[in-house]
């Protein structure tokens, strides 16, 4: 039987033998084989990203993470009534419509002022964060799961399956998102009422479903594109050649490659969903008052933008910073994952 071929190590004279072997092994094992194309790719293609990965995520990314962590922690703690805040539904008559910089002396103990009903803004915003984040995250998760599954099936199986699913997506995408969301909320509300649940159904759930269903074709198309591209790689063919069942191939080979791309999309999606919740609140179908959400805080008092602008701007700034952080983080996540997939 022939000797198994190994990366042969040259042997010098007896005295140099051991040193040379170790030296050669070091050279063979040290680092990666940096091929020329890889050098060129790393220097040219990714050059402008300033690939100083050793320094960590970068200042901007940490700021974004910090902000998001802050928002999440505050919202969760508020919802659990662990923060020393006023109730978001309690009115303080003396505070009504007074902003943080009110001329008649700031409302004591209400640093951000109150809304038109005299409810403390800090409380409204803290509890409101919970509603907004739950709706946005829930909707995106819904969209990821269902859109993701449909997209994966369309991209992996192609042909007929793809045609059917893509047509379904196209139908839903042809309907203006807002109209679709409104119709869904109305429909779901009706369904809830007729089945006896009625007012006991948490409107947040309806919103999650509505925004979620709207996002299914969007997330589905992106997943489909990614699944399609990965399914054409030769390792998928190799798996088929080994006799793996299609489902196994889809889950073990394609999904792990599609998932990272979806993660960055998910962050961007949450940002969009937050804004969507705001829009629906303005249209009157958002989270039902008196439960606050950032969107409905704006919506309720949008007529008062002239005299009490703080009621609008405070939640707007929160939304702005959160969306900015999510977008930025989404980009960073995408850039880092792209880099790791390449052979350098």
């Amino acid at each position: 039987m022939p000797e198994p071929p190994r990366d042969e190590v040259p042997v010098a004279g007896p005295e140099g033998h051991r040193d040379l072997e170790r030296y050669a092994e070091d050279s063979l094992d040290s680092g990666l084989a940096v091929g020329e194309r890889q050098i060129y790719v790393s220097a040219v293609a990714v050059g402008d990203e300033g690939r100083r990965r050793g320094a960590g995520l970068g200042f901007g990314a940490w700021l974004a993470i910090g902000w998001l962590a802050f928002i999440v922690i505050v919202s969760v703690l508020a919802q659990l009534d662990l923060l020393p805040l006023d109730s978001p539904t309690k009115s303080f008559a003396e505070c009504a419509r007074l902003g943080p910089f009110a001329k008649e002396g700031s409302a004591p103990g209400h640093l951000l002022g109150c809304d038109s009903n005299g409810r403390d803004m800090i409380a409204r915003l803290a509890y409101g964060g919970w509603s907004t984040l739950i709706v946005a995250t829930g909707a995106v998760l819904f969209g990821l799961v269902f859109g993701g599954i449909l997209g994966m099936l369309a991209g992996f199986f192609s042909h007929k399956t793809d045609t059917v699913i893509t047509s379904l997506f196209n139908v839903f995408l042809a309907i203006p998102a807002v109209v679709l969301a409104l119709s869904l909320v109305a429909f779901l509300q009706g369904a809830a009422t007729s089945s006896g649940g009625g007012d006991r159904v948490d409107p947040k759930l309806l919103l999650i479903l509505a925004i979620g269903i709207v996002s299914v074709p969007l997330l589905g198309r992106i997943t489909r594109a990614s699944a399609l591209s990965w399914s054409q790689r030769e390792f998928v063919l190799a798996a088929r050649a080994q006799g793996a069942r299609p489902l196994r191939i889809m889950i073990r080979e394609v999904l792990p490659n599609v998932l990272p791309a979806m993660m960055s999309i998910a962050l961007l999606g949450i940002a969009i969903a937050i804004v969507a919740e705001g829009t629906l609140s303005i249209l009157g179908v958002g989270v039902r008052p008196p439960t606050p959400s950032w969107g409905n805080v704006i919506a309720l008092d949008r007529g008062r933008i002239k005299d009490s602008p703080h009621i609008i701007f405070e939640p707007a700034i929160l939304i702005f910073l959160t969306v900015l952080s999510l977008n930025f983080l989404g980009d960073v996540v995408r850039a880092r994952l792209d880099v790791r997939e390449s052979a350098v």
Partner: protein
Amino acid sequence: MAGHGTAHLRAEQDALLRVEHLVVDFPVGRTGLKVHAVSDVSLDVLERETLGIVGESGCGKSTTGRAVMQLPPPTSGRVVYDGVELTALKGAQLRAMRPRLQMIFQDPISSLNPRRRVREIVREGLDIWQIGDKSSRDARVAEVLEAVGIDPANGERRPHEFSGGQCQRISIARAVITEPKLIICDEPVSALDVSVQAQILNLLEDMKARYGLTLMFIAHDLAVVKNVSDRIVVMYLGKVCEVAAPDLLYVQPAHPYTAALLAAIPVPDPEVRHDGPPVLSGEIPSPMRPPSGCRFRTRCPRAQPVCADEEPELREVAPGQFVACHFPLAPGETPSLDGSMSASI
């Protein structure tokens, strides 16, 4: 060239793989046109033999390899492997045959899942079919990794941490772990550096000896194919033009295309000067509208009217040498360089 026929096939019971009248057509979008990638190709491979399939781009050699694997099944034709007619199987039955017939691909990086560890990639064949228990599978993985020259301790790494040559070794390990009898190698060294190429070619020979493999080696580089094969099939535009033993093919090519191919290969010897017009001009016709009769006639310096009317059939011109040509080259004859047809697109 464009030949059909089965004269070159050997006895059915001796062959490990027998392919008869293979046809693979691909529809082109919605135009109604078809790409005739493989048109009536027959070949066979004996056990422990290495069959080389060589040809330029568009000749259908890779498509032939995949059609043999039924990935996807051919448009028509019969593929018999180890006594089983693969073309008659479907679904679970076909899948059950898969571990016995494996494939290695051209692009070493693309043929490995970047998200999985090498150890898992190689073990996948055993996992799918639940062969043995965990420890025996791990032992087998270590054994094949060693056999291909990869330190099993590196099994924890991911493909992008390895070089192209090493990735190709991992692919080979993945292919042999289910103990197939036949491995189809689809351009396994084309994407590798010259020095690594030699390592992999030697490795394939060693694996063949160690595991008792039969190989079907598909490539465009005739020097490489000649080095590894026991028998060579030359293809052009979906058809077989010549079948012969490698040394015979080199010394006395009978088909004008084979001769042209040999003449065009750059030789690393400055004494061999390539003066004068190239032996072969023009470009490969479109596989959607292949020439009538012999498909090579548009570039053949020996073409006659009969070549357009009648497609030549493979016939034996010397012991063990089969050609599909109406005017094959006699031993020692070189195709005439003047009067070569101009480019036809």
